């Protein structure tokens, strides 16, 4: 193995360990799009980075950029951990990702709209089995006949991408219900420009701070046709105790709209209004950050105090638009996910640009037999869970865990899938006072409006524990600012001059 960092400095002793490393190629050479960054960082010692890290923590804490972790019933506010080394995606790679995401969300919107208000063509034509769709936890009969203007059912998607051992971007999950994390994308960028301004300067990074405007215009576009030029848009939050409350506040204030709770809304004669200091004011679009099951106690969980009685009937009457649409969870079902490449072919006529991760459908006897035979080499996941819960990673599980997993699968094969273990790409991350490779994924955010817009970059999540493949923030993951470059960085003029140099801008 070539030594990626022979010279002393931040990268001293850094190893790629046979993984696909975002910064160094297999021969230990710096990938060209990272060269300018590393040149700037060569002026830093690890002490500098540790000090800047403390600055970042203090800034996040006083800004209240936090999420809530629940431990034995007690909520603790934690600052979201952002690693100081940014992840960089070059322009050509991003073009590929963007095209793949636009294609994928186009097909998913078509599928969901067809399923809930259309002819259910994909099902009739046998692309996805009827029983599979109807047995999904995310499938929602109550959503039948509820229109969404422009068919933009996945108004916001947060598609999780991973890079495998060859560096191929693959889709791991689509997250079409209530994906969170965009606020951290924007806050990470703000923090980077403040904490490491010299590193940031002149890098031609595409900006992300227009998200609020893009989201608001997408939401306004899906307003009921009768609501006029300036529809009233609100963000619906479960409240201050929700772990993503910071993000709900952030989005409402970025858009300049009211942040409401269920108790602020009232439905009368199928019209939704909010309670203001001057009486009731009609609401046209609800960007809800509450799960389907809690939206309307009349239709769903009757014990929900977070929702609004009569909301679903108002939506059905076409008096209010709920975004994301109710019932999207069916396409987040990991067993339905396996059919997305087929749905892309069916609805767009093209092959999927971004492949799935190889997935085994365990209700199928042959696939199940094959998967259970190799269970110690595969990852088994429940189909309906998000956030990394309930996952069994074969290579790191004990025999007893594997046996328990096998029994659960055999008892209820519809509700599990198995996937090949993806050796996620790694990225240098600050661990204590030095850099080590840590596994990362990437969650770009996709907006459906008149056209499909992908916000450049997204949330790079980092598994902060050595060797861990779990990047979820609920499981101790961190994040990175993610830069999409506008143009390829220049190649070094002099091939002999491969030592990074400080360009001396400050």
């Amino acid at each position: 193995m070539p030594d990626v960092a022979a010279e002393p400095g931040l990268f001293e002793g850094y190893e790629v360990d046979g993984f696909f490393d975002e910064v160094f190629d297999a021969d230990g050479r710096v990938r060209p799009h990272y060269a300018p960054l590393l040149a700037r960082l060569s002026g830093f010692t690890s002490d500098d980075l540790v000090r800047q890290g403390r600055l970042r923590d203090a800034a996040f804490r006083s800004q209240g950029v936090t999420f809530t972790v629940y431990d034995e019933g007690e909520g603790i506010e934690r600052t979201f951990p952002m690693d100081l080394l940014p992840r960089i995606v070059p322009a050509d790679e991003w073009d590929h990702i963007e095209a793949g995401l636009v294609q994928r969300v186009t097909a998913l919107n078509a599928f969901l709209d067809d399923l809930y208000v259309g002819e259910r063509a994909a099902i009739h034509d046998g692309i996805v089995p009827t029983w599979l769709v109807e047995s999904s936890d995310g499938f929602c009969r109550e959503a039948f006949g509820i229109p969404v203007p422009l068919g933009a059912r996945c108004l916001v998607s947060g598609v999780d991408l991973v890079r495998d051992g060859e560096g191929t971007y693959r889709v791991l999950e689509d997250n079409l219900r209530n994906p969170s994390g965009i606020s951290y994308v924007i806050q990470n960028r703000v923090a980077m420009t403040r904490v490491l301004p010299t590193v940031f300067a002149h890098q031609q990074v595409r900006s992300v701070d227009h998200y609020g405007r893009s989201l608001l215009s997408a939401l306004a576009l899906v307003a009921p046709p009768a609501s006029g030029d300036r529809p009233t848009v609100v963000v619906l939050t479960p409240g201050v105790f929700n772990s993503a409350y910071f993000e709900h506040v952030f989005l409402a204030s970025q858009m300049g709209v009211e942040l409401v709770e269920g108790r602020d809304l009232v439905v009368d004669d199928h019209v939704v209004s909010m309670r203001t200091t001057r009486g009731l004011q009609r609401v046209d679009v609800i960007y809800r950050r509450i799960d389907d099951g809690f939206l309307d106690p009349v239709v769903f969980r009757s014990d929900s105090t977070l929702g609004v009685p009569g909301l679903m009937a108002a939506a059905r009457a076409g008096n209010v638009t709920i975004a994301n649409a109710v019932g999207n969870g069916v396409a987040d079902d990991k067993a339905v996910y396996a059919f997305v490449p087929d749905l892309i072919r069916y609805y767009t006529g093209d092959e999927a640009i971004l492949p799935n991760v190889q997935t085994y459908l365990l209700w199928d006897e042959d696939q199940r037999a094959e998967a259970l035979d190799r269970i110690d080499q595969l990852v088994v996941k429940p189909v309906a869970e998000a956030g990394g819960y309930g996952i069994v990673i074969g290579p790191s599980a004990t025999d007893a865990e594997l046996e328990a997993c096998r029994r659960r699968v055999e008892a209820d094969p519809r509700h599990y899938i198995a996937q090949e273990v993806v050796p996620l790409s790694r990225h240098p991350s600050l661990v204590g006072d030095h850099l080590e490779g840590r596994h990362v994924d990437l969650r770009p955010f996709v907006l459906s409006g008149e056209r499909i817009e992908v916000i450049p970059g997204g949330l790079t999540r980092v598994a902060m524990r050595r060797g861990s493949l779990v990047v979820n923030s609920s499981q101790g993951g961190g994040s990175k600012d993610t830069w999409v470059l506008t143009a390829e960085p220049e190649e070094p003029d002099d091939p002999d001059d491969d030592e990074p140099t400080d360009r001396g801008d400050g």
Partner: protein
Amino acid sequence: MLARDAESLFWAGRYLERAESTARLLDVTYHSLLETSPAEEAEAWRGVLSAVRLDQGFAESGRPLTAAAVSEFLVLDSDNPGSILTAVERARENARTVREQLSTELWESLNSFGLELRGRDLQADLAFQPHELYGFVRRRCQTVAGVAAETMARDEGWRFFVLGWNLERAEMACRLLSVRWRQLSPTAFHEWMATLRSASALEAYRRQYRASMDPVDVVEFLLLSRTFPRSVLFSLRTARNELDRLAVDGEMSRPRRQLGRVCAGLEFADVRELMSGDLGHELFLVEEGIRQVALSVATQYFSNSHEFDLHSLHLLPGDPG
């Protein structure tokens, strides 16, 4: 704006003022009592508790009537809804639920205030540097007020924030006067001076009345001054100004009428007349008037919000439910 948001801003203002007034009161009391007898001291602390309307709560806590116990109760007792720690925490929680209505700088200054207060060793502060602690609380409250004034648009949210802040200030000032009036003899020079100092009013008072310390002048200044921002009348006029602007199409709402009457009573009052009669009773009527205004504000503007379930949480002991 959302009725619930208006209510939260109103209470954020009230709690901040509650924290600041309490810190001022404790600071001055503590330092003016260092040379007095234990009996006088107990009487003074009883007055403090009565001024913040927590005498009953304190009695129920079973603590002795000493400087240490009262200070602890009013500073860091998290079971005491009127302690500085609780008030700041509730101001922060109220602000947090309306964070999208606040400027980032305002939220940051309030949030870091709450976090720093929580991070301090308050027991040690009380033991070794109470003056530093009270100064910290006062300065941070003033910082929050200043940042708010410099960064918030003069919209509905601002008006409810200022309204809550000033109603609380007027009520606290009123109670302080009424306690002092009962306790102090007209010749208690140092105590009247301390009363002025607790309102940061001493220098302003001297510029108006020179160095004399006549209780009549002190009461006039703290109750009726039209120029000093912590006087009862000044605070009520500030509150009235915001209420007037909240009225849609000049509507003469119930809280406007009530507050107008309280203000007019003070605007046309003569201090010597007040003091030759029953000043204590007059002050009680003003205080009662302020409470009625607060209730009417809630009915007029917040009753559209959820069924008042949070309201009980907001009320301080002794407040009418």
